[in-house]
């Protein structure tokens, strides 16, 4: 398993993106590239925006390829306020735009585009993991 640790600041988004792409080096990932980029952006920016309101903490991203079935798994880990974004109500996409809450869209997209998304709170950390078949 590979790992990258960066400060929870938006300017490190590209480093995390590069890390994820390096983990998948050598595999045909064209068909999942959009989902992976979106997942990285949404999960990383969620941590940057909400995990550490008082301080600047770190973000750990761990993951890589798994075989049989071929898939990738990435965990986004922070030591911020305990928060399970999956407990948020899924937005009602049939509502007219005026009645839609503006938040929650990012995590909604992540749930739609990945095969598995799960949250754990362990060792004082929020751990959000996404899995996508290749």
């Amino acid at each position: 398993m590979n790992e990258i640790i960066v400060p929870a600041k938006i300017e490190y988004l590209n480093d995390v993106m590069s890390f994820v792409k390096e983990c998948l080096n050598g595999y045909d990932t064209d068909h999942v590239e959009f989902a992976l980029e979106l997942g990285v952006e949404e999960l990383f920016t969620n941590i940057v925006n909400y995990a550490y309101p008082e301080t600047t903490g770190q973000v750990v991203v761990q993951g890589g390829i798994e075989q049989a079935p071929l898939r990738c798994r990435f965990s986004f880990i922070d030591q911020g306020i305990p928060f399970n974004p999956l407990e948020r109500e899924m937005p009602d996409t049939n509502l007219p735009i005026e009645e839609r809450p503006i938040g929650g869209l990012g995590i909604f997209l992540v749930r739609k585009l990945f095969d598995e998304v799960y949250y754990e709170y362990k060792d004082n950390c929020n751990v959000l993991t996404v899995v996508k078949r290749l």
Partner: protein
Amino acid sequence: MVEKYIRTAVRIDANTAPKLDAELKEILDSGNNHIVIDMEDTVYISSIGLRAFAAAQKRIRNSKGSMVIKNVKPKIMEIFEVTGFAGLFTIE
């Protein structure tokens, strides 16, 4: 009726969405409420980009204007569809 035309970036992400949001606000603030958005170049959009479109669409609806989105690539269309945005905009 004067239509304002915007051509969106290759990627509408955390880096570029604030610029799109500002562009849309500027047009609406100047009193124009008919906007054509050409997405020919765009291959990626995240939730922050969708929020910029949603905010503009709300104002346009309230002022009885129009927002037309053109040349949407299949991957982007998929995002519009799963989020229900496809039904909120006029997509040509």
